[in-house]
């Protein structure tokens, strides 16, 4: 069978079978691959005497190729060799018609993917293990933070409880009086105070539960002002004890696509570090931690600065600041993992945590990508390799609306790009190829009409939907023709309302 000797030069095992499915040739590598000396291989007359697969019926597959006499490629299959039970191969089979002067045959090529497959499985397992370990470290850090905060939290709970108890006594006393009616307003006030105090306790406990909750990988649109407020609330008792004043400055209204709890954890960590540093340092000026929210349009970033007027960091500390187990605190008071974990958390949001050199005090900066850029990159990456997906830009200053629409649109397999400010949206429209825009109508910076007019002036020609209550329908009726507004999603809405309107706007005239 000298006509087949060229197969001997291949590093894939090749068996040549005739139209009766008999093996008429095997190349040199076949002997190595099947762990059979040529003496044994020569005795084998059919493919299934040599190998088998649980994934496909090799005989049936061969019949298919013989019928069509065309090249046939199998999916990746697991191959077993009857006499080598320990051997597990992952291969792709290629059937190639080979016509010689004397006969028609098929070359069955065994393309070995075993190493790739096993490496893939091995590294996937290791990645899972790493993720698990990382999650455990995060959780441990949270428990440490929580442990450190517990003393001050109990103080926080004691305050409203004392108030509630005091007012409860007042209520009891009044109830013992003969003429309750005359003290009705005092009674109502005391009752109101008890309710508020208990709500406050409830809120503190709820915050603790949220903070400790483990399944927290989901990212959502978050109002950064509210998020920073919550972080301050956590750190406040410790700050009061150390006589440190925490201030917040917000130059812009910022929304981030983030894991709220994790981002809160980072800010608490940074603020706590500042408080601890200031507490150890004698001060001539009132101690202060400032959290400043701003935006860099140039870098498309939201910036959170945490600045204190404490002693600052020594040069040797700065060098290894983000390495694990680096701590400026005394033994037993810090794990030294805080900043390293904070950095990992911010990086998982495609952001950066950096130390900013300053004349006095300590200054940390969190840079987060603007939500338009992040949500686009995140969705687009997830959908990479699938067919073209529609890109929907949703502009709304309410984070809850963005989160609801994100779920609706993402679940339908479209790319959701959230935006909380019209100017950021307009910047983004210029750069990305958006298929449809949904805009809130009543926004502080400009209304839906003004936004749509600017988008049209920039050359955006795709459909625009308003999202508003029925009171703005008149405006829609005007804008319909002047700004080519495609439709309205009327608030309150449900998923069907949104998705049907969206599909109709994307493919007018098609059944939905």
């Amino acid at each position: 069978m000298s006509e087949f000797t060229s197969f001997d030069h291949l590093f894939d095992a090749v068996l040549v079978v005739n139209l009766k499915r008999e093996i008429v040739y095997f190349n040199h590598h076949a002997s190595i691959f099947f762990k059979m000396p040529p003496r044994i291989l020569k005795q084998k007359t059919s493919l299934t005497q040599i190998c088998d697969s649980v994934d496909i019926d090799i005989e049936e597959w061969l019949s298919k190729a013989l019928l069509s006499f065309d090249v046939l490629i199998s999916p990746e299959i697991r191959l077993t060799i009857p006499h080598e039970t320990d051997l597990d191969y992952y291969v792709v089979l290629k059937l190639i018609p080979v016509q010689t002067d004397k006969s028609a045959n098929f070359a069955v090529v065994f393309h070995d993917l075993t190493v790739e497959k096993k490496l893939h499985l091995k590294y996937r397992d290791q990645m899972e293990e790493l993720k698990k370990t990382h999650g455990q470290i995060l959780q441990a850090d949270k428990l440490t933070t929580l442990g450190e905060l517990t003393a001050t939290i109990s103080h926080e709970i004691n305050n409203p409880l004392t108030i509630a108890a005091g007012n409860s006594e007042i209520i009891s006393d009044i109830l013992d009086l003969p003429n309750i009616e005359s003290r009705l307003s005092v009674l109502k006030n005391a009752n109101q105070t008890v309710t508020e105090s208990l709500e406050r306790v409830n809120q503190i406990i709820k915050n603790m539960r949220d903070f400790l909750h483990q399944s927290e990988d989901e990212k959502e649109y978050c109002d950064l002002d509210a998020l920073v407020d919550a972080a301050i609330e956590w750190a406040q008792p410790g700050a009061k004890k150390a006589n440190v004043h925490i201030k917040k400055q917000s130059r812009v209204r910022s929304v981030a696509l983030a894991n709220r709890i994790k981002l809160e954890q980072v800010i608490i960590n940074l603020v706590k570090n500042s408080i601890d540093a200031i507490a150890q340092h004698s001060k001539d000026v009132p101690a202060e931690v400032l959290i400043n929210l701003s935006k860099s349009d140039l870098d498309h970033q939201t910036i959170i600065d945490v600045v204190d007027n404490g002693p600052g960091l020594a040069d040797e500390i700065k060098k290894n600041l983000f390495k694990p187990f680096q701590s400026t605190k005394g033994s037993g008071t810090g794990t030294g993992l805080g900043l390293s974990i904070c950095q990992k958390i911010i990086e998982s949001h495609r952001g950066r945590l950096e130390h900013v050199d300053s004349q006095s005090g300590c200054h940390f900066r969190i840079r987060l990508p603007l939500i338009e850029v992040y949500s686009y990159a995140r969705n687009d990456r997830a959908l990479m390799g699938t067919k073209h997906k529609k890109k929907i830009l949703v502009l709304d200053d309410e984070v809850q609306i963005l989160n609801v629409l994100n779920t609706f649109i993402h679940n339908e397999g479209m790319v959701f790009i959230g935006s909380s400010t019209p100017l950021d949206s307009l910047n983004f429209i210029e750069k990305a190829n958006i298929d449809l825009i949904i805009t809130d109508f009543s926004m502080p910076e400009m209304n839906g009409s003004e936004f749509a007019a600017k988008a049209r002036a920039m050359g955006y020609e795709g459909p625009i939907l308003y999202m508003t209550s029925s009171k703005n329908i008149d405006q829609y009726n005007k804008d319909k023709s002047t700004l080519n507004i495609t439709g309205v999603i009327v608030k309150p809405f449900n998923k069907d309302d949104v998705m049907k309107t969206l599909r109709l706007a994307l493919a007018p005239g098609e059944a939905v």
Partner: protein
Amino acid sequence: MKRLTINKQILQDELSVELIGCIDEDSDFKELAGLGQETISFDFDKISMINSCGIREWIKFIDLLPARCNIVYKNCPQIIIEQINMVHGFFREGSVIESFYAPYYCDKCGKEAKVHLKSDTVKNRKAPKSDCPNCGNENIEFDAIEGQYFSFLGKI
């Protein structure tokens, strides 16, 4: 799978390395870096498996050995001989394969045997005569394709 263990001894001008287990993606030959002597001999007798990632690691390691070193391969099992025959770079030019195993089959007792051979006993890529270690049959058959199996001898 058994991870690769590397045993090493330096005596006179020779670094003797015994390799045990699997040569795969986790194999690390770093511990041998800088130990190069006039002669480095590798004993493959206890190698049970080698895969393509291990081959890459091996070639990378062999490439870094000083050119002045004489490299000797000893007791190469069939899986190593197959790689030497197939993969460019597995065997550094000018190296020596002192000994290896070759597959034989005894048609009298029906047993397969891996016979230990010295390279200089193989002439013209023909398998030397051997006795069956099981039944003593004086003329057992070579159990591979001679031209292919002994092709590494052309590289020496």
